[in-house]
């Protein structure tokens, strides 16, 4: 920033506008290209629907779960190896969950009838801040164990976002299926038999599946 007047050759002065004329089209071109590219991305963008049954847990060993049941017994998922386990996350204030409940009662009865090869059903009390869901199970006695999810331990371990949600775990303790929606007895039985067939058909861990 010197105050001394600088001597500039006239040629250089005359050159400046010419140079700026050369730069301007480049800038316009770059801007146009960026906007065009952006436009293409926007045209191709689809409405965001992130409600998928994908879970990073599928095909992996189920997280370790220790909890107390509603009637005060200790539960450890590790000890359930050897049989198929169905976990159902439940909240009494959620309409679809309550709708699904009778179907689960049927499902539990069906599986019990199968004896040793039947799957074990567990309900997980989900987000029960005012104790209403625990009360629901106290008044509607069920034949299967109900797990109290202290500190939302199980919910966070399984990444449960919205109930009702049902998980199927194979006898080796691997997560094979996650279902986000309310199920009927038939649907759940069908899913279970598919998973059992795949598991029996060779692969030790079953094929990862996800159903919405």
């Amino acid at each position, binding site marked *: 920033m010197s105050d001394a007047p600088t001597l500039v050759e006239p040629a250089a*002065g005359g050159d*400046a*506008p010419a140079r700026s004329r050369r730069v301007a089209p480049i800038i316009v071109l770059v801007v146009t290209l960026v906007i065009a590219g952006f436009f293409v991305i926007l045209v191709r963008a689809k409405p965001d629907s*992130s409600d998928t049954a994908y879970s*990073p847990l599928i095909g992996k060993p189920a997280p370790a779960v220790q909890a107390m049941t509603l009637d005060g017994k200790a539960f450890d998922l590790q000890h359930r190896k050897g049989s198929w386990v169905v976990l159902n996350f439940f909240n009494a204030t959620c309409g679809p969950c309550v709708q699904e409940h009778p179907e689960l009662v049927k499902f539990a009865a069906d599986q019990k009838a199968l004896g040793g090869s039947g799957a074990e059903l567990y309900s997980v009390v989900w987000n029960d801040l005012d104790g209403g869901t625990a009360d629901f199970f106290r008044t509607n006695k069920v034949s299967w164990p109900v797990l109290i999810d202290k500190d*939302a331990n199980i919910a*966070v371990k399984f990444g449960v*976002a919205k109930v009702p949600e049902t998980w199927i775990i194979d006898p080796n303790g691997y997560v094979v299926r996650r279902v986000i929606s309310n199920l009927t007895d038939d649907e759940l039985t069908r899913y279970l038999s598919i998973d059992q067939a795949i598991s029996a058909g060779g692969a030790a861990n079953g094929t990862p599946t996800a159903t919405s």
Partner: protein
Amino acid sequence: MSTATAPAPAPLNRKLKRWPGWVVLLGVVIVALLIGSTRSTGPLTDEDRLDGIAQHIACPECEGESVYESQSPAAQNIRIQIKSLISQGTFSDDQIIAYVETNFGTKTQLVPKATGFDAVVWALPVFAGVCAIAGLTVAFRRWRSAADTVPTEADRAIVDAALAEQDDEH
């Protein structure tokens, strides 16, 4: 620069504004910033930690809210779980965030990672900043060289047009 002009008997205000006044100012600022950035912020309560962690996790069932903001049951669950993890006292904030992410998948990831393609979202702002500074530098240099030019015919035409427009108006 005219700092070399003869020191006339200046009023106090002028004397203060000479370099020493600014040096003192700079010194005070540096000391204040040093004290402020090194002294401890006091112990973080569990609740403060919970808030901080929850702000970094997206609520899995909501649309664009963090676990900190959302009142949905899933967000409540995650907060309860984080709280219990904090109270165990052995996990760092990053570990807790990573724990939630491994269980829920990327949909609870609220902050893009600095690896892979996601790094672009961190790099582009820096790149844009560099471009802006470079552009400004080039523009000013150019203007400085252009400042001495003689107006061309085209320039005169623009000025004439502008003056004509003004005459229309008045």
